């Protein structure tokens, strides 16, 4: 079990009990409750993980070069996001926090839409229903209640082929809203899957600062199942999420999934993790890389050859270039768009302010003439 000494995790990750289908060494293991589905596309998962990591790397570079105001890196969490994201049916609805770039990718969202937000061009420009992927939510844990309410709507529509998944982190489990979402989802048997990516840190606070017991056990007290999965194992994340979504659609209510993973990078580009964690810890987790184990497994079992990996790498390089170009091509919003979409229709006070500011800006132009 976890031993706490001064806030650091001293337990080796392999000692943690969790669902695993592919070991860090790239060995396939079976789990009685989660047999591998025949249609699992592991090569496709590999491709997605490599590509989203490339998006992430490019975005960090763009932030360093001043093109983005901020970036919240998903490095190390590719398996949790791609595994769960690919378990969703096209009709399932996903509610992200602000780090789910991998889920966004699985929902077919153009990475440029994410860059817009972190560049400060807008606060999220995509249509949530079009992609079945809600806007990013920055205030910690708020979206868990939105997801629960959305799931209650699905119940009222008597829809049996839809479920909801909501993403949040280990830190969020301390927020009142998250406990309230658990309570509501439980008493109403709402078809929602709570997908907690336990990446071990809420900025600097280790998971033990949120809970002395494993996070998945929170579900017990609320009366629904909780399960912990190796968050760096894309097959296990996929199988466990698919199972939970199926249960939700069948009317069995919510499930809490704790994907046990690690934030390999900083909380965001403004954070300096060397102030609160040891390099040795990072090294331990580097050996559990979510992509590397899939590559080893695919290569060893002959499912993929060198040409496949080279092709994916080339595709990633091309995507990186495209993401960079897309960022550079983003136009700055026009000044008066500040006033857009605050209300669905006219608003006398706001409209007067817009007119006043427009006249003010025109005054500069006239002065320049």
């Amino acid at each position, binding site marked *: 079990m976890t031993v706490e000494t001064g806030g650091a995790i001293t337990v080796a990750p392999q000692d943690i009990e969790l669902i695993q289908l592919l070991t860090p060494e790239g060995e396939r293991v079976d789990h009685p409750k989660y047999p591998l589905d025949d249609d699992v596309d592991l090569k496709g998962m590999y491709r997605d993980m490599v590509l989203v990591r490339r998006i992430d790397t490019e975005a960090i570079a763009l932030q360093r070069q001043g093109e983005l105001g901020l970036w919240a890196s998903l490095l190390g969490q590719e398996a949790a996001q791609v595994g769960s994201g690919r378990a969703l049916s096209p009709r399932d609805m996903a509610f992200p926090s602000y780090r789910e770039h991998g889920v966004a990718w699985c929902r077919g969202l153009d990475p440029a839409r994410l860059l817009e937000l972190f560049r*400060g061009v807008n606060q999220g420009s995509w249509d949530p229903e079009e992609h079945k992927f809600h806007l990013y939510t920055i*205030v910690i844990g708020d979206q868990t209640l939105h997801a629960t309410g959305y799931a209650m709507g699905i119940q009222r529509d008597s829809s049996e082929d839809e479920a909801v998944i909501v993403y949040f982190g280990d*830190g969020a489990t*301390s927020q009142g809203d998250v406990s309230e979402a658990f309570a509501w989802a439980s008493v109403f048997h709402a078809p929602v899957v709570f997908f907690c990516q336990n990446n071990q840190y809420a900025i600097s606070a280790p998971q033990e600062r949120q809970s002395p017991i494993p996070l998945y056990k929170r579900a017990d007290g609320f009366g629904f199942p909780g399960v912990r999965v190796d968050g760096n194992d894309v097959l296990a994340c996929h199988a466990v999420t698919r199972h939970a979504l199926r249960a939700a659609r069948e009317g069995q209510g919510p499930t809490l999934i704790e994907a046990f993973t690690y934030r390999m990078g900083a909380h965001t580009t403004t954070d300096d993790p060397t102030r609160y964690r040891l390099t040795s810890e990072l090294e331990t987790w580097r050996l559990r890389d979510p992509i590397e184990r899939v590559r080893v497994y695919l290569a060893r079992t002959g499912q993929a050859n060198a040409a496949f990996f080279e092709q994916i790498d080339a595709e990633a390089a091309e995507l990186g270039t495209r993401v960079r170009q897309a960022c550079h091509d983003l136009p700055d*919003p026009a000044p008066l768009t*500040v006033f857009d979409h605050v209300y669905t229709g006219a608003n006398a006070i706001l409209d007067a*302010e817009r007119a006043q*500011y427009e006249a003010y800006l025109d005054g500069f132009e006239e002065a320049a003439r």
Partner: protein
Amino acid sequence: MTKLTLSRALNEGLRRSLEADPKVMIMGEDVGKLGGVFRVTDGLQKDFGEHRVMDTPLAESGIIGTAIGLALRGYRPVCEIQFDGFVFPATDQIVSQLAKMHHRSGGKVTLPVVIRIPFGGGIGAVEHHSESPEVFFAHTAGLRVVACADPAEAFAMIQLAIASDDPVIFFEPKRRYWDKGEVDTAASLDGALPLDKARIVLPGDDVTLLSYGPLVRTCAEAAVAAREEGRSIEVIDLRSLSPLDMETITASVSRTGRCVVAHEAPVYAGLGAEIAARVTEQCFYHLESPVLRVGGFATPYPPARLEDHYLPDLDRILDAVDRTFAF
């Protein structure tokens, strides 16, 4: 005198308070080991221990609710809310409990809790990291609401806030955290300007310009620019947003006859509205023109690429000043 950043000045002030009173403690997200995301509490946990400088679970309502309990037990908690936009999960504890308990208990309970909130925009941040929620709290009876503007003020005001037996919402201008200024860290608090007093930053004769927090510096710069054009602006840093120091305000406006209020928060139902009403009531026969307000629009805080339009800058402030002479 030492030259300190505003962030460092707050750190020194907190340190002084921790040294002066063993009941003072600091609590919040990432305030311990990390030293706060703006490093305001840097090194304090190392020097005062985990019991006095506490990294809390990630739960703002929990931070304020347990601070109330600690205060009931005789402690003086200084809570950090990491960013302005994250205070709202705690508003039930602040508005329904913290603000009212002294009154409800007929004065038997005092809650000397300080809630530090970095506020305002101008740092190119993502959503919920640039807001100015001061008026929600100024509207709530039972809370003192203050904002510091420069390092020397920050150093003194944080200590005064901690010494206050009323709960204090303490706003820190986050885009000014790196501004440097002379601070007398050896000065006694006895000589400090009281927490509920405004301060004349630059004296002037033609118009009174009122502000607080991040815009005090902008207003001072506007006054310097206006001086070159022969216009004399008196700049006042309100410091206390609740209560307002109407004595200082009315003395100035009665002399200048003109008044402009500048804040980053939306003009609509903002603090400027309260000031304008009171100045109109109390200085009516001295006024040469209506009190004008310049501030944020009646919109959500915009994405970073638009914030320069939203935030009142020197030009917009001087435009408002000019308009007071057009009546």
